[in-house]
């Protein structure tokens, strides 16, 4: 499943903001309490109760999903899901 997703991206160029957002929100589901729906404006800490270990797990998944390397120094500027997607887009283009 994951492999076919990657191939799709390679064929079609870089995924757009909406596509990444949808996928990241799907990836976030197992991290949050039942009844919480992760969305664009969710704050990782206040809304989704993230701690540093959860952040690391998520970063690993996203790295594998999109075959990119996410440098640690982008994280300080990330507060919401939207911030995260914007950083991911930058990484995919570069």
């Amino acid at each position, binding site marked *: 499943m994951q492999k076919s997703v990657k191939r799709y991206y390679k064929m079609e160029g870089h995924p757009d903001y909406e596509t990444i957002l949808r996928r990241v929100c799907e990836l976030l589901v197992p991290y949050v309490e039942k009844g919480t729906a992760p969305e664009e404006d969710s704050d990782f800490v206040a809304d989704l*109760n993230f701690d540093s270990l959860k952040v690391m797990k998520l970063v690993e998944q996203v790295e594998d999903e999109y075959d990119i390397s996410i440098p640690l120094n982008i994280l300080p500027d990330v507060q919401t899901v939207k911030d995260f997607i914007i950083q991911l887009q930058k990484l995919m283009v570069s």
Partner: protein
Amino acid sequence: MTMEATPTINTIPLRAGDFSTLPEALNYAAQGQTGYNFYDGRGKLSAVLPFSKLRDEAQSLAQRLSGLGLERGARMALVADTHPDFIRFFFACQYAGLIPVPLPASIHMGGRKTYVDQLHRLLISCRANVAMATDDYFPFLSEAAEGLDLRFCGTPQAYAELPEAPIPLSPLGPKELAYIQYTSGSTKFPRGVMITQTAVLNNLAAIVKSGCKIRPGDRGASWLPFYHDMGLVGLVLAPLAAQLSVDYLKTRDFAMRPRLWLSLMTENRATISIGPPFGYELCLQRLRQSDIEKFDLSAWRLAGVGAETIRPAPLSKFAEMLEPCGFNKEAFCACYGMAECSLAVSFASLDEGLNIDSVDGDYLSEHRQALPVETNVPEGEIRSSRFVDCGTPLPDYEVEVRDSGGRPLPERHVGTIYVKADSIMSGYFGDLKLTQEVLTSDGWFNTGDLGYFVNNGLFITGREKDMIIINGRNIWPQDLEFAAEQQPEVRTGDASAFSVPGPNGQEKTVMMVQCRVSSDPQRTELRERVQRLIYQELGIECYIDLVPRNTLPRTTSGKLSRSKARKEFLKRIERDQLQSSERPIFISANRVQAG
């Protein structure tokens, strides 16, 4: 040309830490072929720094630093990323007569401002004269250095462009400091532990000779941060003092892919690796059955465990799961120590695994005595607490367990642990008052930990000081409380932070905050604001418990009592849980200390 890691087998005879200074230790190690190896986030070798190359590069860098006209003993702040450049600069300071001060390299999501503030405060606290960070961290360091009078602040490249000054190098001597180590955790109230060359070399010799019994063929592996005492002293300086090769993973890469640790140990057949219990647990959580065939851990002879309360159960599970890969549970070795003692105080006997003492928990809390209980007592009859033997104190250590009046206690009596040795710090940098609180005039250091002795084995039962330990990191409640007190709704002295056992035995942080805010949305907003601040600063989750004004418990002298607050909180939780069928977030009373 492909890169090759430094060999395990050396070409010079092993000298077990018998040096008087770090430069002397490096000069000897540089005659051999061993050294430091750095691996990237995919487990590939990314840089190799043999001790010989390290010495040459550190000396050349020392000549450049000498041209800056700094006073002897001036402080050089180094953001301690797991990177060869940190090590080069650390040793350049040794040769140039400067004192290196490792600073934390840990940034949390959304935490730019808090990290910059933290670096800023540490630069002020150590009165840094020069500072360095690798490219990844330099933007934060340079922002933190704004407004401070530093002689030079730059990346390794910027330092490389300085001219080498034609001044003969005069390395740090035995009586001078080797480094200043900020005890992990406190950011608002930094404690810079001053360690002399003699102190650290004494401890290194004891670790190498008595603690680990290093022998030819040993090799280290580590994912511990270089700004942590166990990472720096245990896995950078001790291997150097015994001329061992070490393989490093960045802490961040370990946290993301913990199994890399085991792959790396398999690849290079490392024999020694040390970490907090949390590291083993993290690895365990992410292990897959299919990994088991890939790993060969049969060379791993010393799996050190320390830095936080040791819960034996997850470690047993780790051993059980990895037994088919040749992991031997006898390799577990509990140790006890702290930055104020350079690093190590005691090591359990090698090749014996964890030695656990089960004691009567109720008797312990009422009478402060650890009475052994039979392990086959039916459940429910006696509440038993399990503690791990942290071993015999290292040879140059005197250790006493004392009562509140300062009198030494007999075996199995719980008291405060005091230690005396030549590896103890000279004091906290620039803080005489704090130093005098913990160091007596006759050279005893009050660890603030509680424990007892059985047959010369030291068992740690808890802490007298209110420090909280999460994932092997020391967290000072003052830092958490400060985050709350900064809020307009909260006054100074209106917050009390402590830790309680979570459902899986790991510590969870809780902070009781008293305030007048009564509307629900406002309360939720305040809770989230404080939680976010704490996360940005320390990377931990903290449960915020809002209580009405004037309800925080105080001591008889009117001071806030964190231990009373904790007791009240646990009592309330127990009551609430009796009335509710929801899954508990906290263990209702302090049922399990360890195990």
